[in-house]
């Protein structure tokens, strides 16, 4: 009965005529490198996960600047809502990681060369869209960080020559971040960018079938566009494997493990905590980008200041240009990374940049620690007299936000735990009055008595001789 129903359905739709060749299309035998071919499909699985959880979230979310935050509280307050938010958030991170690994694999194996240049270009588009989804998604959380992300994005876009101001206003959907802003990001995140992803993904998958999955590269076997297709067909005829299930099982195994990990994390860790409400009048905000943009944030901070305006626009533009030009200028020749040693260097450099600057961005030494508490008495060494007064001045005047003393305070400026051993009182006075590139001048901002106390405090910052337990 079921079989008859299927035959009838197949007869009037022709599904099996179309699907069976796709499932069984021959794939080159990847041998040792078979497990490196699984990251594209894992990205796709996570994308499907994002669609499912995204639809669930959209059914509880109100894209209004006044209410979005409350609806997130509502979603997070339910058992399954909390899990769904967790899956969506960890899924976003997983998608960024997996598409990154997939791109690196394709790059290292030279699989972007003839005839797969358009596979690469559509993939580059998908990488861009994934990052856009990650950015717009964290913003839809619409807590304080979400709100300030829009402002900072508008300011960054404002650095674009000629159209910067217009672009910034376009991002805000007006003169200020207000009622119209969030709806725009919601529409982009839920309709516009996903539509582009479907379009590019459909083309990408069509091209995978059309050009066939690339064979593992071999040193000394360059791609020659004149002979490649015939050679590839002959390779498939000789040792091709049907995609389903001989090859696809690996995709399923990794996809399963990825989804299991994401769901486990979502249940165990839960979704990212909501910050304060998106109220622009709450000034106590310290917006930070998500981890996937943290390295770029750190990079922009650590480059020489004069270059920031150029890097902020040219950096992403250059990255995009390299992605587009790569298959066009290097579309043939050696594919093996052994014969393309610079490709290994490029990948090592990129991974190092993301890890190094990501770690820097995580610590954010350039951010003042504005929540630093007053120095406790055991650090100051006394509770009365000029040294204690000086410690009070040190905190009150904001010195401590940037200068660490005995583990308390910021790390923007030099650690002053043993300040007296580095500078004389005269040098300290000069520095306090003249300031520096990253330190304000306190001329006219300290009474003579405050200065005397502050110097007394700083003068007392020296290593204690062994055997003495108190600074006094």
């Amino acid at each position, binding site marked *: 009965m079921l079989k008859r129903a299927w035959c009838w359905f197949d007869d009037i739709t022709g599904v099996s005529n179309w699907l069976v060749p796709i499932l069984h299309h021959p794939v080159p035998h990847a041998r040792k490198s078979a497990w490196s071919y699984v990251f594209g499909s894992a990205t796709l699985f996570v994308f499907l996960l994002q669609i499912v959880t995204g639809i669930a979230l959209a059914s509880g979310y109100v894209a209004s600047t006044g209410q979005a935050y409350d609806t997130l509280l509502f979603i997070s307050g339910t058992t399954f809502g909390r899990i769904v938010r967790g899956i969506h958030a960890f899924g976003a991170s997983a998608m960024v990681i997996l598409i990154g690994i997939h791109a690196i694999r394709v790059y290292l194996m030279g699989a972007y060369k003839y005839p797969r240049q358009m596979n690469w270009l559509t993939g580059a588009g998908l990488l861009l869209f994934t990052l856009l989804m990650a950015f717009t998604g964290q913003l839809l959380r619409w807590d304080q960080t979400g709100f300030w992300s829009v*402002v900072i994005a508008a*300011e960054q876009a404002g650095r674009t020559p000629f159209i910067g101001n217009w672009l910034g206003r376009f991002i805000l959907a007006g003169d200020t971040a207000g009622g119209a802003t969030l709806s725009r990001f919601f529409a982009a995140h839920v309709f516009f960018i996903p539509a582009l992803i479907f379009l590019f993904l459909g083309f990408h998958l069509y091209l995978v079938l059309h050009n066939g999955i690339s064979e593992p590269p071999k040193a000394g076997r360059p791609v020659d566009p004149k002979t490649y297709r015939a050679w590839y067909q002959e390779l498939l005829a000789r040792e091709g494997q049907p995609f389903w299930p001989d090859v696809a099982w690996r995709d399923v195994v990794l996809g399963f493990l990825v989804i299991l990990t994401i769901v486990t994390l979502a249940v165990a860790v839960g979704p990212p905590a909501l910050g304060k409400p998106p109220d*622009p*009048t709450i000034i106590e*905000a*310290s917006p930070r980008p998500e981890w996937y943009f943290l390295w770029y944030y750190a990079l922009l901070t650590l480059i020489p200041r004069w270059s920031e305006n150029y890097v902020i626009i040219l950096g992403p533009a250059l990255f995009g240009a390299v992605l587009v030009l790569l298959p066009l200028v290097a579309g043939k020749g050696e594919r093996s990374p052994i014969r393309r040693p610079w490709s290994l260097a490029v990948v090592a450099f990129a991974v190092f940049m993301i890890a190094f600057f990501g770690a820097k961005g995580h610590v954010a030494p*350039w951010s003042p620690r504005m929540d630093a508490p007053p120095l406790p008495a055991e650090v100051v060494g006394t509770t009365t007299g000029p040294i204690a007064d000086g410690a009070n001045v040190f905190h*009150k005047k904001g010195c401590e936000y940037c200068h660490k003393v005995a583990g308390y305070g910021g790390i923007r400026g030099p650690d002053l735990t043993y300040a007296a051993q580095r500078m004389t009182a005269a040098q300290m006075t000069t520095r306090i009055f003249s300031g520096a*590139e*990253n330190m304000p001048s306190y001329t006219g901002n300290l009474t003579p008595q405050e200065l005397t106390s502050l110097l007394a405090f700083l003068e007392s910052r020296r290593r204690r001789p062994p055997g003495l337990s108190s600074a006094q």
Partner: protein
Amino acid sequence: MNENELTETRRRFLTRLSIALGSIATAIVAIPAVGFLLGLRKPPRVWRTVGAVNDFQIGSTVKVSFLDPSPLSWAGVTAQTAAWLRREGDQQFIAFSVDCTHLGCPVRWLPDANLFMCPCHGGVFYSNGTVASGPPPRPLTQYPVRVQDNQIQILTSPLPIT
């Protein structure tokens, strides 16, 4: 020649007709859709009262908040804007935008230190808004402010984009 077969010129005409009709249909749909997307709201700039003159001490800087010029009913808390208001003299006030001129993060006023400090990259401004240290390229943006009938009013302004 088959009677049912169209002439070459006629086929060319029909091809062009189809392309033209398709283009017109696309345009008449796309123009309002894209126009709506690109058409930014340009609300009027209005003076908002933030308090009476005597609410502020000379030499002090305090946070004031006021409403957008024409807030949308669903804007909620985001319809509010904050500014740092400094009373310089009897009738002299300065209103600073809270947005750091570096990348727009909200700067905080440190009353004891007499400085504005930005939590993002540590930009510091003096009490008159000029840059004290760090990455900000320009002094804090000032909003127009006036005293009217003993009330302090700030002119609503666009987000300062560098």
